[in-house]
């Protein structure tokens, strides 16, 4: 097949891959085996379909091919042989005929929810949860995941092997938690997706401020999850939050890769279609009961996205939402953002007083946005020497080059300005 056509077909398979993998995990209860035969089935499709034509039920074709290969493999493999009978019995018992409802998309039942919960199981190290979710559900290869996180491929491969080993040997089950466990476990799944997004949005290190590919992968994962759990309002909230932030991506960096703050962004470059989609989801996330933390954060992002500029932003409402968020998820970072909103509502002096209180919190000592926010308010108040010291502290702590460049520019401004 021609190279470009093959790439196009592979892109189609990316979507199908997670679905196929999940169905096979459900069938055989073995992630390694499922991964191997998923790859083989897709390889077989790439060979046969261009010649024989795409079968009428491509999903079923892939599933049948993969299942046959799995059974062959189990029969060949001595260590697997004894388990074959058990696995089959277990699989038949655990997998009743899939209901013909919204969970069945195309001609393959969608079992990806099992994989979401297993990949983000709290017994796995946080970094392994991210790596496994990107690989098993977003369909990224190990080198792609490694590149996205700027770690060597061998390191990422080790993480994935370690994660799969724990799933297999500690027997982390492939199951959807029951209603009692669901809220806590779902929060874990959302946490993994949001970590992927934030890593993509504000890369913690490296030359680029944003790594859009990761942010888009996170949005893709949230869309899949939303399809699987349409009634969970926090899933809608998380997707809304990410869309409403991601809508500003083009305005967030200047042509030279320079970081542009919310105050200075060209709001005409915000993605209005994405904002519209986010706003619809926010309403869903906030309707019908107390909002969760993602819904509240999405509402804050929505207020920013709807405002024509910083001055006309609804700061009282934003402060009120931060108050709610602080009760839902008390954290010094939420308190910091609330202080910044109060500075906008009541003036820099009020914000600074709150930031000075927060500066004593040991959890914020190494957090550069605190020092940058203090520096900005001190500069607004004309306290240039103190502002410069705070910018220098932020500079020591900032991780990405565009952030450091931004801080250096601000530092240069206050240093050139006489003390008022």
């Amino acid at each position, binding site marked *: 097949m021609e190279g470009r056509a093959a790439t196009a077909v592979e892109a189609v398979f990316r979507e199908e891959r997670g679905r196929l993998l999940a169905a096979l995990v459900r069938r055989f209860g073995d992630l390694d085996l499922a991964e191997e035969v998923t790859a083989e089935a897709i390889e077989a499709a790439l060979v046969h379909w261009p010649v024989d034509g795409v079968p009428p039920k491509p999903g079923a074709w892939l599933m049948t091919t993969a299942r046959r290969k799995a059974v062959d493999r189990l029969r060949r493999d001595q260590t697997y042989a004894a388990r074959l009978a058990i696995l089959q019995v277990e699989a038949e018992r655990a997998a009743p005929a899939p209901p013909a409802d919204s969970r069945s998309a195309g001609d393959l039942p969608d079992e990806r929810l099992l994989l979401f919960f297993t990949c983000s*199981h709290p017994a796995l190290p946080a970094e392994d949860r991210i790596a496994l979710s990107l690989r098993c559900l977003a369909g990224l290869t190990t080198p792609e995941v490694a590149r996205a996180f700027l770690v060597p491929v061998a390191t990422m491969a080790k993480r994935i092997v370690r994660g799969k080993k724990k799933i297999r040997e*500690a*027997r*982390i*089950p492939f199951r959807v938690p029951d209603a009692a466990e669901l809220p806590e476990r779902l929060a874990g799944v959302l946490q993994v997706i949001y970590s992927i997004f934030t890593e993509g949005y504000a890369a913690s290190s490296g030359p680029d401020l944003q790594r859009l590919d990761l942010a888009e992968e996170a949005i893709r994962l949230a869309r899949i999850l939303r399809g699987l759990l349409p009634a969970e309002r926090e899933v809608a909230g998380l997707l809304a939050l990410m869309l409403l932030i991601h809508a500003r991506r083009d305005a967030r960096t200047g042509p030279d890769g320079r970081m542009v703050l919310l105050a200075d962004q060209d709001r005409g470059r915000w993605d209005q279609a994405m904002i519209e989609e986010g706003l619809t989801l926010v309403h869903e996330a906030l309707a019908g009961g107390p909002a969760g933390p993602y819904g509240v954060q999405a509402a804050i992002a929505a207020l920013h996205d709807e405002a024509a500029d910083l001055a006309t932003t609804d700061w009282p409402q934003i402060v009120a939402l931060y108050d709610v968020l602080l009760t839902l998820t008390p954290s010094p970072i939420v308190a910091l953002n609330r202080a910044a909103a109060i500075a906008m509502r009541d003036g820099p002096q009020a914000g600074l007083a709150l930031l000075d209180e927060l500066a004593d919190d040991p959890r914020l000592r190494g957090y550069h946005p605190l020092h940058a926010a203090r520096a900005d308010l001190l500069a607004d108040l004309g306290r240039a020497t103190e502002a410069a010291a705070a910018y220098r502290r932020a500079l020591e702590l900032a991780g990405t080059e565009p952030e450091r460049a931004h801080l250096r520019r601000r530092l240069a401004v206050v240093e050139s300005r006489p003390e008022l």
Partner: protein
Amino acid sequence: MKYMLLINAPAEPAEDAPGCDFEDWQAYDKTVKEAGIFVTGHSLADLVTATTVRVDRDGQRTITTDGPFAETREVLGGYYVIDVPDLDSALDWAARCPGSRGGGSVVVRPIAAFED
């Protein structure tokens, strides 16, 4: 699948930790046994009774020392081995164990299975 629940008590137990009374332990032990998952389990005598043995490289000299090691923040106080379907179930039993409360913790370790 068999899991060992290693029950670590804080070196300095809290005064009034709810859910860790003798009655709580009795009730937990009874539940584990009635659930049909109990394989084995013991509670260990006080740490001051512990002795550590090491044999040096050439196998000549046995070094015997008092206690496990100094400055332990948590002390292994006992263990259960349970047989349950998967890790989620083992974690659930660990969470119900009085040893996981009052500053204590329970470490869940799968028992290694060797293929024969």
